């Protein structure tokens, strides 16, 4: 089936210092690809007065100084780049992330299995068998929102969000999965496991944030002793994530 040509974006003012470029109102891979491609095209222009560009599921937030970059000109720049190249300009990383599922590392695994009348092993097989796309990084440093969760384990968020969740949690909420940073963040998502990988690490001076919007992630179940070993290595500053594409 041929993709329909995308509608031009809606440009919405966010005060005098923000412009929202809205490509749609739904969560989906096609829109998200265009968001990221448009963001990259704008990044490449390095426009004066543009302070940052924040890609999210279906829109870009452009923060700028209107005294350096008049709003009308910024709008023209954005529309001139529409539609962005379908393939996107830059190649994105493909990551393999080790996960210790269940037990104290994923306290909601059994409950999620019960909700779907599955065994915990089947939930792990489904979760680790899928390929995920990083739709956006948001909420907390390095927190990755992932699309691609198999429909069989779509699970409504918890009615009682937790004020703190374990660092480096792998969770699911609604139609999405997520990778937590090495911080105890509040969350209403279901905790399936924990990874030794630090999606945010200020010691990694060249790349404090591992993932970015547009990357691909797959999960590999690991055993408790491997988890402990990898955690110790990560603690010592060794990179324990596997990048599957040649960087």
């Amino acid at each position, binding site marked *: 089936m041929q993709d329909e040509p995308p509608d031009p974006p809606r440009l919405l003012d966010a005060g005098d210092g923000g412009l929202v470029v809205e490509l749609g109102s739904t969560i989906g891979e096609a829109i998200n690809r265009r968001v990221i491609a448009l963001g990259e095209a704008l990044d490449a222009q390095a426009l004066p007065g543009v302070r940052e560009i924040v890609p*999210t599921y279906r829109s870009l937030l452009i923060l700028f100084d209107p*005294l350096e970059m008049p709003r009308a000109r910024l709008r023209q720049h954005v529309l001139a780049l529409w539609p962005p190249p379908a393939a996107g300009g830059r190649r994105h990383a493909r990551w393999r992330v080790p996960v210790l599922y269940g037990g104290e590392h994923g306290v909601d695994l059994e409950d999620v299995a019960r909700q779907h009348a599955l065994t915990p092993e089947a939930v792990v097989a489904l979760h680790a068998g899928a390929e995920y796309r990083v739709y956006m990084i948001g909420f907390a440093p390095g927190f990755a929102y992932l699309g691609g969760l198999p429909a069989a384990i779509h699970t409504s968020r918890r009615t009682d969000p937790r004020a703190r969740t374990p660092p480096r949690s792998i969770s699911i909420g609604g139609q999405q999965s997520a990778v937590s940073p090495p911080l105890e963040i509040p969350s209403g998502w279901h905790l399936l496991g924990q990874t030794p990988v630090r999606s945010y690490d200020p010691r990694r001076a060249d790349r404090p944030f591992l993932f970015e919007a547009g990357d691909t992630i797959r999960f590999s179940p690991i055993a408790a002793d491997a988890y402990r070993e990898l955690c110790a290595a990560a603690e010592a500053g060794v990179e324990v994530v596997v990048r599957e594409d040649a960087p």
Partner: protein
Amino acid sequence: MSGHLVFERPGLFSSLQDFGRFGYQRFGISASGAMDTVAMRAANALIGNAPETAVVEITLVGPAFTVAAERCRIALAGADFPLSVNGRPAEGWRAHALAAGDRVEIGGARAGMRACLAVAGGFAVAPTLGSLSTHSRSGIGGFQGRALQSGDRLPLAGAPPGPLLALAAEHQPRHDGPIRVVLGPQDDFFTAAGIASFLSADYRMTDRTDRMGAQLDGPPIEHAKGFNIVSDGIMNGSIQVPGNGRPLILLADRQTTGGYPKIATVIAADLPRLAQRRPGEAIRFERVTVDEAEAAARAHRAAIAAMLQDLRDAAGTAMDLTAERLLALNVVGGVCSAFD
């Protein structure tokens, strides 16, 4: 010359801040930075610091500290905090020359919410991701990624002797008046009655007011089509209205994305004034167009430049605006080409 400020008590919430850390919101970290950037610029200018030099931002109740350095110059600007040096009352909006062992005490704010404490030369703290701003929620930046605690020794970068300036009361910024907003980006999620109550009612700052955001209380704002949007980017000054209808203004340390519709955005020129509104105080919003907001940004910049022109020598004589003096103040750029 270097040394430390030794904090005997930290105050309610004191943290290192500069103009913020830009470029990382796409990775989940909002910019942070001083909430009242006018106060930050003034505090730095009073002692001849570059405008972007990091300051200690203090909140409602200030710290007490001792100077562990041969000498240093400090200035406090922003909200009206009682200040004393070795037990003797001292003024804000004025530079003070201190010597080793001097004890500075900053009390509870008489009016306003925040002030910036600048030290000549700034602090000898390594930046994180290009900024000294503290984002305490994620443990990034500032002094060990957190607000100051009792016993902290904040290292000083040190500075050569420099100016001691003051700003007369009539030139200090006022913090009262309505807060101007541009409607949107999701004002279409609200009924006409909802927008009317947002723009006409008195809201109140609640105790849930910090560097992340300000939760307001007041007449609930009516949604037109639910209160869920697909999460998108949030900026400093975005006003979210969740299901309970009570507006929440998101500020410097906000979460980077959110899923509630945003009825309006505080204009950039009014963010410093908003930063001085304290819990319990009323807040009223005034709608402006985006063009008016831009004009306000231009006027705001001119007002800051005018304020810095009104600095006077702290001894009371009119400041000598020679080229050397302006250079020391760092308000003039491009004078250093001889060194290139």
